[in-house]
């Protein structure tokens, strides 16, 4: 089936043939921009299959194919999606060794995620770029649609409003609508950040203004459990430190909607005595502190000394969500694997990856005891270029008086031996202050210095000088090896690679293979046997314009972006 649109050189619509896309309703007009927007509402896609839309503008034709898939049978009732932001296989390898220890080539123990019943590899990509960010990658996972960098739950258009772009319905919205399932998000970031927001949010920009809107969208969407940081995006603009542009007190609005609100780990514990139906836990103004600062370098916590960890938040969310006999979907994010790889801080990133694996372990144990019919998927949104290539003799490195001496302190191949991290208290987290440590670096970086040793304060490897250039921060690793910049900007950036996918429980078998990460959406749908066509008249990915207000019969929108060609924004519904 195919649809064809034609535009002239002025961007005016000249011809429409929607062929097999029968039953269209309204053609809506132009946007106040150079490009033209054509929106069909009331289109029905009669069956699963490929739908092609061709847009011709001034002699250039672009084509987009949208596939509505057949539903699959599945027996899981619940889905837990674990995301370690920026996690890669080399990071898992390093964190596992640091956590469990290795003797004569043999690990003392495995990670919890190592026990996966199925493993896959997922490509990451964007509509508009080879590279990806957390917004559009987790949007792919949550909607089945590939989006543009910074966008979530939408196809980016050219209209000035960054919140009105054509929407794709999220997995959470579909299961709320068709099954009345509960939905939760747990994160160590500001909870309006890209990875958690992909569960419910719709917009093309993950920046500040949209984040304040995503907080409102979460309330409208009725996300049942929310835990993370981000108080400053909930405070009205009359409060000092607010990052909202309006005077809405979102704490008060969530409270008014019936949410139990907690702001410390102690309050969270107390609230769990009698399980609330809906819970909002906001524990810091911005992101939560990382495990290493919460547990070792506690001077970095400031006023926020009573933050829960990812394990406690995960188990609390599961207990609350499991009250719904229709099942639940919980997304759990270890945000600071990514947030600490950006400033090249290997110890803070790997510690949060270890904590993440403990959260996976806690969920596995919880599911075994409480809900064996739970599909658990563990993956990343995108990668970072971190690898270990040897070890560093710390005493020798620090005693060196020149770079040649520092380089000579790095052991490679058989000269690497083993790191000497210890774990005296047996909590699974190493003491990073060791005599021989990982020679681990991120392969893209600003100008900076690297001494491979844990920093008592969060790293700022690069600073911005008076002309806006990023230069080595003289206060960070002053005795380190100088590294020349190979990226613009002041931090490491995301890298291109397939990310690992691990799965446990009913439906795990679907995870095997190599695919785009948008397929994880379909794996989750298959896991619970989601059949929206039978359950609520859906073929596949429905996208109401306003999810919270009930299903909108708008079905297919096509945006022709002027001479740049067009792309399809598809939605389907079968009555």
């Amino acid at each position: 089936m195919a649809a064809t649109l034609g535009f002239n050189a002025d961007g005016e619509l000249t011809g429409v043939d929607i062929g097999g896309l029968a039953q269209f309703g309204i053609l809506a007009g132009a946007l106040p921009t150079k490009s033209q927007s054509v929106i069909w509402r009331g289109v029905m896609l009669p069956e699963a299959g490929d739908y092609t839309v061709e847009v011709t503008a001034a002699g250039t034709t672009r084509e987009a194919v949208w596939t509505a898939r057949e539903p699959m049978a599945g027996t899981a009732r619940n889905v837990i999606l674990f995301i370690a932001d920026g996690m890669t296989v080399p990071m898992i390898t390093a964190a596992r060794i640091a956590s469990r220890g290795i003797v004569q080539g043999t690990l003392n123990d495995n990670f919890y995620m190592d026990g996966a019943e199925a493993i896959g590899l997922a490509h990451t990509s964007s509509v508009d770029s080879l590279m990806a960010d957390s917004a559009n990658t987790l949007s792919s996972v949550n909607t089945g649609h590939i989006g543009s960098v910074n966008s979530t739950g939408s196809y980016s258009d050219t209209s000035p409003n960054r919140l009105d772009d054509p929407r794709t319905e999220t997995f959470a919205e579909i299961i709320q609508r068709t099954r009345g399932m509960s939905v939760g998000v747990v994160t160590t970031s500001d909870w309006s950040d890209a990875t958690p927001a992909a569960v419910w949010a719709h917009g093309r920009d993950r920046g500040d203004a949209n984040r304040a809107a995503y907080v409102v969208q979460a309330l409208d969407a009725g996300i049942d459990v929310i835990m993370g940081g981000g108080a400053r995006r909930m405070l009205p603009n009359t409060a000092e430190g607010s990052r909202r542009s309006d005077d809405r007190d979102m704490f008060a609005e969530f409270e008014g909607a019936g949410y139990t609100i907690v702001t410390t780990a102690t309050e969270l514990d107390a609230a769990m005595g009698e399980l609330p139906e809906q819970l909002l836990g906001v524990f810091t103004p911005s992101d939560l502190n990382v495990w290493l600062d919460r547990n070792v370098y506690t001077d970095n916590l400031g006023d926020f000394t009573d933050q829960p960890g990812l394990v406690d938040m995960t188990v609390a969310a599961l207990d609350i969500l499991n009250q719904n006999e229709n099942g639940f979907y919980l997304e759990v994010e270890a945000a600071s694997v990514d947030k600490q790889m950006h400033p090249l801080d290997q110890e803070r990133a790997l510690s949060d990856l270890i904590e993440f694996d403990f959260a996976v372990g806690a969920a596995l144990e919880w599911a075994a005891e409480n809900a064996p019919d739970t599909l658990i998927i563990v993956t990343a949104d995108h990668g970072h270029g971190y690898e270990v290539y040897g070890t560093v003799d710390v005493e020798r490195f620090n005693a060196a008086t020149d770079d040649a001496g520092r380089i000579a302190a790095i052991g490679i191949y058989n000269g690497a031996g083993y790191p000497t991290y210890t774990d005296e208290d047996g909590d699974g987290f190493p003491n990073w202050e060791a005599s021989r440590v990982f020679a681990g670096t991120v392969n893209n970086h600003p100008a900076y210095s690297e001494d491979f040793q844990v920093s008592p304060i969060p790293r700022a490897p690069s600073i911005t000088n008076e002309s806006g250039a990023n230069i080595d921060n003289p206060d960070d690793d002053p005795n380190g090896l100088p590294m020349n910049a190979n990226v613009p900007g002041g931090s490491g950036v995301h890298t291109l690679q397939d990310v690992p996918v691990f799965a446990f429980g009913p439906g795990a078998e679907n995870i095997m293979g190599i695919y785009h990460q948008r397929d994880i959406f379909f794996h989750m749908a298959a896991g619970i046997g989601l059949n929206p066509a039978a359950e609520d008249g859906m073929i596949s990915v429905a996208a109401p314009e306003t999810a919270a207000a009930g299903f909108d019969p708008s079905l297919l929108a096509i945006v022709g972006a002027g001479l740049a060609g067009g792309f399809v924004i598809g939605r389907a519904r079968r009555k």
Partner: protein
Amino acid sequence: MRSFSRMLVALIGLIACAACSNSSTSIQQITSIPPEALTALPTASPLPNTDVVEAATSAPVETLAGMAALAAASRQTLTVDAPTPLPLNTQLPPGDARVIAAATDTAMQPTARSIVAFDESVVPITFDEFYDGYNLRAGLIMSDKLVSLDGRAVTMEGYMAPPLKAELDYFVLTRIRLSFCPFCTTGADWPDDIALVYLTGDATGATEHPIRVTGRLEVGTSVDQETGMVSLVRIYADQMELLS
């Protein structure tokens, strides 16, 4: 009284960062102040102390143009009771953003729980002394020292964040050197402990070295009319000194 629409800081990131692509600008505003002179400085701001709430002698100003005109014409205290017009990023004559910012301070009357008395005519303050904490349900808690210094001459040290563009009336004073250019990066976030420094002259230079700023402190939320930059703490600087 707080009728201002708050323009979110990161929106500024959408503006091209001129300073990030140009090479360097000369430092035009720096003067060296001998330490003994600091204690003798009067509160030398040429602007009126705008924290004195006067009877509204001028009608509420509805538009940015009107505010700028009034500011330029009268250089008097304005009583502003209108929403900040958006979008910002307008081109104001040099110095007017400072005048408008000073005028909007009239709307802000932070109250100290316990007024702190100071012996010095120019009081040193550090970023660590700005806030007593952060109530997650209510926001930052300004310290009694900070609030008590509202309208007083202060001196404080810090770093200049990379400026948005060379000819801005202000720069951002930060506790530590930033590892990023918040003006250049969409989505980058300013730390809470910053101060906007409005200069008396019509040009700012830039430096990566620590600086000391002396001038009148103003406390309370204000939106810079030229860029939309939101600030809680401003210094209307008379002097800036390079420390290196």
